């Protein structure tokens, strides 16, 4: 094989050697693709309706696409099987003697064994994917699209297979035993995700201001080949996605090639191939296991004794297991005691760094001159109704992709007055010394069983946390979370709320071009109107309406936003209009009721404009159309208990009690004060423990179908009357008090 055709000659021999793998792959892919395709597409063409035909095409493309989950499973299993079987000969001294004594360079053996593993999967998968695309085309799918989808899926899965397969090869090359190699593959795929989870858990438990959960989770996909594979499901196949996988694959191949070249032949049969990697891997795993043990027992026992016990058990057991594996000898379990002690100390050091905040993470506040800009997310209790997302255009259709509000707001908001955030941080840090004393007292009172783990200990009610993002001049971005006792923040939140930089980032509608508005949806207590579509209002008037709303929104104070909204409104540009009008189409369902904004009573410009455009903002509900009103409220659940010889009342939770109101006079009074239930979400920082919920049961056919279809399913009373319920509520006050008394009266009787 010293001639130029060494590759083909070697491949022939290698494929003969691994004929079982070739047969296995052909059988698996045959049943996974063409057989499934035939099964899915075997329909009576003439009986298919158009939607069924479209669904069939969707099924065909889904089977061929890169999102076929079964192929992921197959690829993962095959990567391990072929990676291990291809290079397992290195674990046998006989085979190493045989192959390495032949006049063929090791690089050539690597190429032959490596490429054969790829081809064993690539060829049957490619062949059967193409055949399946052809079958799909015969069933009605566009041939070009089916073939293109199959090719894209094949390319993506093969690239991901290459990464997993090369990882398995690296695991085999770094070990001298097949079982240890499989363990190595498992470690490569899980070590760093577990590391990040432990880091996350420690930070969440020990650091009060830590809020980097999402950013840490984002790293998981970069630290595990399998997670990297799965993460490719998000979004479409892009050049970046393919390119990054090619780069990662190339780097892994390079590592594997170097390891293969450096791997000593005498490593066959040993646990680990390279002596240098032994202490590194041992220490890394023992530290992680020790921290995991610490966290487990700390969360169970809740005190430092249990934490140390967990650290010792996790660390020592993992060290012993590794030593047994390294030496294949149980008696060697306590070898390398020095490294074990070092690992335990390192694990404790990691824990100590978090527990006592040795790095000063919580108390860190950037200097004002180092801060380029700052963003604040006050809490989920303020503007929690806001919807964020982005619109993707695909084949002439638009699709709404929802986003989490925290990340979006922190990215978009930039306070005009950055000292607001810095003062907030300083206030929090200043309070920490006092709180620490309170905590210590509590521990002394409650003893070792007290829950003192991280932030789970609280002695009083706290506001929802305020999130701050510092963007430093250096380009670094740091996020912190601050939590204050209830009521302490109202002044500061009002100031943040009125900061122009806050509103600009918080409400994307402020940035909407008035000329782009094509229609406006106005909904008043569930009755929706399309201003252009139904009332024929001109685009110029719609633009004016948006300007009015933007002006009201910009002037709004936190106090204004605590009122009950009069209506809700949604401005539609071309893309949004298509999403709304295309109801029922594949991509339109995603938009739903997103991006409705409240119209508060103080939005006088908007209210005036709506009235001028002929929108009825006070729809009258006819009492005669109401069958009954179901009134319900929350009451504390209590019981009498004996305390130190005396009977006392103890409260434990809430219970909901209700009755059905049919008295017309009372119903009329309720009508006068009740507020539309779904608009409660627009009331910032609004909590009313004494509110009374009222479910108004409206007789079927009493109002237009549109209204009744919009809100609730029909129900039938015992007397056969059909009605549908609409939710309202009555705020705390005389009527609410009276209603609560009536509930208790009915309940007690």
């Amino acid at each position, binding site marked *: 094989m010293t001639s130029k055709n060494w590759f083909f000659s070697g491949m022939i*021999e290698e494929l003969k050697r691994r004929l079982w793998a070739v047969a296995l792959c052909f059988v698996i892919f045959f049943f996974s693709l063409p057989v499934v395709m035939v099964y899915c597409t075997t329909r009576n063409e003439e009986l298919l309706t158009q939607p069924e035909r479209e669904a069939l095409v969707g099924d065909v493309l889904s089977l061929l696409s890169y999102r076929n989950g079964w192929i992921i499973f197959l690829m993962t299993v095959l990567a391990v099987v072929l990676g291990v079987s291809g290079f397992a000969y290195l674990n046998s001294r006989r085979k190493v003697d045989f192959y390495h*004594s032949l*006049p063929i360079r090791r690089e050539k053996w690597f190429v032959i064994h490596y490429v054969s593993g790829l081809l064993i999967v690539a060829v049957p998968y490619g062949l059967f994917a193409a055949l399946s695309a052809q079958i799909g085309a015969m069933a009605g799918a566009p041939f070009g699209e089916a073939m293109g989808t199959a090719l894209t899926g094949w390319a993506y899965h093969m690239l991901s297979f290459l990464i997993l397969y090369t990882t398995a090869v690296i695991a085999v090359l770094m070990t001298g035993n097949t079982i240890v190699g499989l363990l190595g593959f498992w470690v490569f795929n899980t070590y760093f995700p577990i590391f990040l989870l432990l880091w996350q858990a420690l930070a969440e438990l020990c650091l009060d201001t830590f809020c980097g959960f999402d950013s840490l989770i984002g790293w998981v996909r970069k630290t595990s080949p399998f997670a990297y594979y799965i993460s490719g499901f998000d979004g479409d196949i892009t050049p970046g996605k393919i390119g990054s996988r090619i780069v990662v694959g190339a780097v892994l191949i390079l590592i594997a090639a170097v390891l293969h070249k450096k791997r000593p032949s005498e490593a066959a049969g040993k646990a680990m191939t390279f002596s240098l990697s032994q202490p590194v891997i041992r220490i890394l795993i023992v530290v992680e296991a020790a921290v995991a043990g610490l966290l487990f027992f700390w969360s169970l026992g809740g005190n430092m004794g249990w934490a140390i016990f967990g650290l010792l058990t996790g660390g020592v057991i993992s060290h012993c297991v590794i030593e047994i594996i390294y030496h294949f000898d149980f008696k060697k379990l306590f070898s390398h005691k020095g490294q074990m002690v070092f690992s335990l100390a390192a694990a404790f050091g990691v824990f100590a760094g978090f527990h006592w905040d040795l790095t000063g993470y919580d108390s860190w506040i950037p200097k004002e001159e180092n801060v380029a800009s700052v963003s604040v997310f006050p809490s989920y209790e303020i503007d929690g109704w806001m919807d964020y997302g982005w619109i993707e255009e695909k084949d002439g259709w638009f699709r709404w992709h929802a986003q989490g509000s925290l990340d979006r707001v922190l990215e978009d908001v930039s306070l005009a007055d950055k000292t607001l955030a810095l003062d907030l941080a300083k206030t929090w840090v200043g309070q920490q010394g006092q709180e620490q004393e309170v905590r210590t007292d509590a521990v002394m009172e409650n003893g070792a069983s007290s829950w003192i783990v991280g932030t789970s200990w609280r002695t009083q009610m706290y506001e929802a946390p305020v999130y701050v993002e510092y963007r430093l001049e250096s380009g670094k971005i740091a996020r912190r979370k601050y939590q204050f006792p209830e009521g302490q923040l109202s002044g500061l939140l009002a100031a943040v709320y009125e900061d122009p930089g806050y509103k600009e980032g918080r409400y994307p509608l402020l940035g909407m071009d008035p000329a782009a508005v094509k229609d406006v949806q106005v909904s008043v207590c569930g009755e929706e109107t399309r201003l252009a579509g139904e009332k024929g209002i001109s685009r110029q008037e719609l633009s004016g309406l948006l300007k009015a709303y933007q002006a009201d929104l910009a002037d709004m104070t936190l106090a204004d936003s605590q009122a009950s909204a009069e209506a809700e409104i949604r401005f539609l540009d071309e893309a949004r209009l298509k999403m709304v009008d295309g109801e029922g189409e594949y991509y339109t369902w995603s938009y739903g009721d997103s991006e409705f904004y409240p119209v508060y009573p103080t939005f006088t410009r908007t209210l005036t404009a709506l009235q001028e455009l002929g929108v009825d903002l006070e729809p009258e509900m006819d009492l005669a159309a109401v069958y009954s009103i179901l009134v319900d409220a929350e009451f504390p659940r209590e019981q009498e208990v004996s305390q130190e010889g005396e009977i006392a009342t103890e409260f434990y939770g809430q219970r909901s009690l209700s009755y059905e109101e049919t008295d017309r006079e009372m119903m009329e009074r309720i009508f006068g004060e009740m507020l539309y239930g779904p608009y409660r979400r627009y009331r910032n920082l609004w909590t009313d423990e004494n509110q009374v919920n009222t479910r108004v049961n409206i007789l079927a056919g009493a109002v237009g179908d549109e209204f009744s279809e919009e809100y609730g399913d029909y129900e039938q009373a015992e007397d056969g009357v059909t009605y549908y319920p609409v939710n309202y509520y009555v705020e705390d006050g005389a009527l609410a008090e009276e209603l609560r008394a009536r509930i208790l009266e009915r309940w007690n009787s």
Partner: protein
Amino acid sequence: MIETVNLTKRFDDIVAVDHICAQIKDGSVFGLVGTNGAGKSTFLRLLSGVMRPDEGTVTIDGKSVYEREDVKSRFFYISDDQHFLGNGTPADMLKFYGRIYPRFDGERYRKLLSSFGLAERRKIATFSKGMKKQLAVICGICAGTDYLFCDETFDGLDPVMRQTVKSLFANDMEERGMTPIIASHNLRELEDICDHVGLLHRGGILLSKDLDEMKTSIHKVQCVLAEGAEVPAGLEVIRQESRGRLLTLTVRGERETVERAMESAGAVFYELIPLSLEEIFISETEVAGYDIKKLVF
């Protein structure tokens, strides 16, 4: 010529091959002897480029062996437990080696298979240990390489086969100058085939000499000297035993020199008895300070 200079290989704390300097001349049979664990297999694996030396060099005609295809194509290595292609037959091995060794003689391979009674299409996995050894030797001989490295190859062959293989070696040595290097712990087997012998012990080489040279330069003499006579001063006596008046001497020197010395000493009776390879090694290694009885027997 194969040459090793300061060849060293360590496995963790164990020095398997310890600074071995040796020369293996072309056209001779080199026997590598030693006890189990002496480092014979490791030495051969270093020679064949299976392992990379920790120190020192292995060269064939001045060219390093490790990862050199042109150099490695000059030898064939038969390990003590030879591997064959999975599920393969002798016919498969023919195709395989035919692609690797350009001078592989397929015709002769088939003939030898037939002579040895090995079916060409039978799965090797069903062969006995001895049959596998035979097949390995046939592959090695037909590869047409200049050197043939054999690790315990004769172990497991019946006496007839051993003789057959030896004659095959002799034939190839004569016809195309093949140089077999044979590692074994059995000195008696090597005695009638080796030209040159190297003794390994604990990774080091105790001695390396031509067998003929050893045999002609060392003798066992049984003699009875005249009353009051002493062992001739001119003799280099390595070992001396006495039983009554009967002396058994192991002496170094040419046969004629020894005979003249005995006659001049007025020996009543003397007889020169040829030494076996084992006895030569015992004597030589005792001189070197080793208790060879523990090493070889």
